[in-house]
């Protein structure tokens, strides 16, 4: 049977408009589907992350309990770190101890006939010795040079007395 359109032609929408309406309806359907999928995705994300946060919080509570039980260890560690920092500062201020060790090494290597008279140790190390004869003096100077402990060695005084022998004053420093 042939299609009979009883509507007057002036109130019938045009073919293009009908097609546009159809396309728009399809777009709306797709949009609704996308919206629904996004909504479900967001919901799932929220549920998953909430579970994750809750379980992480539970683990944190457990860890906090363990930290509490280790409080005395933590106090000792904080004290240790604080004191180590202070010790570093103190040792950094100690400029004389290295000179003491170096001077000690030189002093103990003195030949037997070299008699120390006065030793001052500080930023500059001063040594005054008496040496009975020239052969011992040579040994003393050789030992001093061989020790090679200080960057600078200055002969500050040299005198001779027939009763005590040679009096030698030396200054040593690392600067």
């Amino acid at each position: 049977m042939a299609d009979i359109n009883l509507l007057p032609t002036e109130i019938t929408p045009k073919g293009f408009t009908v097609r546009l309406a159809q396309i728009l309806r399809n777009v709306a359907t797709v949009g609704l589907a996308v919206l629904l999928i996004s909504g479900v995705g967001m919901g799932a994300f929220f549920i998953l992350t909430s579970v994750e946060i809750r379980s992480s919080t539970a683990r944190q509570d457990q860890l906090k309990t363990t930290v509490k039980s280790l409080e005395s260890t933590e106090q000792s560690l904080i004290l240790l770190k604080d004191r180590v920092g202070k010790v570093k500062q103190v040792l950094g201020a100690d400029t004389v101890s290295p000179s003491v060790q170096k001077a000690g090494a030189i002093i103990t290597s003195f030949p037997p006939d070299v008699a120390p008279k006065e030793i001052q140790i500080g930023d500059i190390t001063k040594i005054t010795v008496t040496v009975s004869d020239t052969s011992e003096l040579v040994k003393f100077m050789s030992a001093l040079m061989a020790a090679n402990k200080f960057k600078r060695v200055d002969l500050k005084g040299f005198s001779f007395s027939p009763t005590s022998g040679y009096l030698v004053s030396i200054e040593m420093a690392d600067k």
Partner: protein
Amino acid sequence: MKKSLIPPNFQVLITPFGLISAMAILGAVVYNVGVARISQQNLQVAQTKKNESVLAERVSVLQEVSGTVTTQAKAADAAVPNINPGLLTLSQLRQLASKISVTVVDFGIGSEIRDVGGLTRVETTIVVEGSFANVVSFVSQINTVAPIAVPGKIRITSAGGLSRASVTASSYFAPLPTKLPSLTEPVTKLTSAEADVISKISSLSQPAFLELAPQPPAPRPNPF
């Protein structure tokens, strides 16, 4: 038939346009709210994970050091105590002198001097006599005692087979830390430089303390 005021072409498009507009508005609302909530949730997850890892690291560090840290802290506290160490230093130097067989002929403790970095310094002067070798040995071992004694001025004189050393050494003290870091702050392991310092201070000769045991009350004898 009554003729509609809205043209038929427009009439047929009203419903789809309405649907699309509603969809767009709903989409915009969902997008705005959803994106904001997602980023907020993401931040919360990241923060929670960070806190958890900080706590886990803290527990791991504390468990790792728990066996040794108390002894090391005691040694470190003896090296730089929290109270004036003048008397302790003097006592330690006297013990060192006795060990090395040199005689203490004079001593003195100076007043407290404020130093840098929250440290306070006390100068202890000690004069010892003995053989030259022993006096030199005493001088070179001054920095082996706890509290740390940093030698300042040293003067050794020798006459008639007897040597005398006059030593001024500084020992330091500082107040103890007063608070622990908050639970969300990380606690770091000891660095190798810190471990070196700890091994140095652990080798120092520690002061010996006599601990008196508490006594129960005893009946007092009648003095009359």
